[in-house]
C-alpha cells in the first residue's frame, strides 16, 4: 500500500443512493471505500434513496448469479469505516424499518441532520 503518513486527511462522504445488483455502482463504490480507508481518510457512508437496499437483510443473489457483497459491510469496522449513516425517510418511503437491515452499527438521521453532515464534507462520491 502506498500509504503516506503525512498525507492530508480529508472529509469524504460516499453517497450510496443506487440499489444493489441492478447496477454495479454500490459494489464498485464499496471497493473505493475500502481503498480510501487504507489511505487513512475521514470517511463516511450515507445511505439514501434506493441505496438503503444495500443494507437490506436476507439478500440472496444465488438465483441471479451475481456475487453478493453484504458480508463486506460486516468487515468495514476492521477497516475503521465506522460512520454509516442512514436516512430515516428513505427507509420509511420504501416500507422498511431498522429491523429490515443487516446487523451492523448504523446511525439513523433525519433530513435536516443529513443536510448538515453533507455540508461538512470536502468531497462527495456518488455510488
Amino acid at each position, binding site marked *: 500500500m*502506498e500509504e503516506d503518513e503525512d498525507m*492530508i486527511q480529508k472529509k469524504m462522504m460516499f453517497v450510496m443512493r443506487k440499489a444493489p445488483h441492478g447496477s*454495479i455502482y454500490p459494489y464498485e463504490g464499496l*471497493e473505493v471505500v475500502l*481503498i480510501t480507508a*487504507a*489511505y487513512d*481518510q475521514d470517511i463516511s457512508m450515507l445511505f439514501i434513496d434506493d441505496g438503503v437496499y444495500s443494507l437490506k437483510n436476507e439478500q440472496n443473489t444465488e438465483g441471479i448469479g451475481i456475487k453478493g457483497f453484504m458480508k463486506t459491510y460486516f468487515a468495514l469496522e476492521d477497516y475503521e469505516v465506522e460512520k454509516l449513516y442512514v436516512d430515516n425517510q428513505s427507509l420509511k418511503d420504501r416500507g422498511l424499518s431498522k429491523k429490515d437491515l443487516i446487523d451492523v452499527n448504523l446511525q439513523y438521521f433525519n433530513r435536516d441532520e443529513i443536510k448538515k453532515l453533507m455540508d461538512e464534507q470536502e*468531497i462527495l462520491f*456518488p455510488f
Partner: protein
Amino acid sequence: MKIAILVLDGPYNHEASDTAYNFTKAAIEKGHEIEGVFFYNDGVINAAKLMEPPSDDRNIAKRWSELGGSGVKLTVCIAAAKRRGINDDVVIDNAKIAGLGQLVEMAVAADRLITFGD
C-alpha cells in the same frame, strides 16, 4: 484551482463522457489546473483505443488520448478495467492503468472533485 475529474460511465451510451470532456476543456481554458481524470466503473471503456466510430462522429477515445497528450493525467482503474477487458494492449496512448489509490491521491491533492456518470 486544482480540479479532479471522475468519470463513471462509458462512451456513447450516455452523455456523461462528453460532459466530462467539455468540462475539462473549459476548465483548462479558464486557466485551472486539472489534477487528473480518473476512469472508473464503465468509465474505463473511454480508454479503449480500438473504438472506431463512423467518421462523422466524435472519436471519444482519441479525444481523451489527445487531451492526455497535452499534459492532462489520465488514469484508468485497473480492477474496473480488468472486469471489462481493458488492458495495456488496448488502452489509449497517454493514459495509464493503475490502482484505485490513484483516485484517492487525486482527490486529496485537488481543491475540487467533480463526478460525471450515469
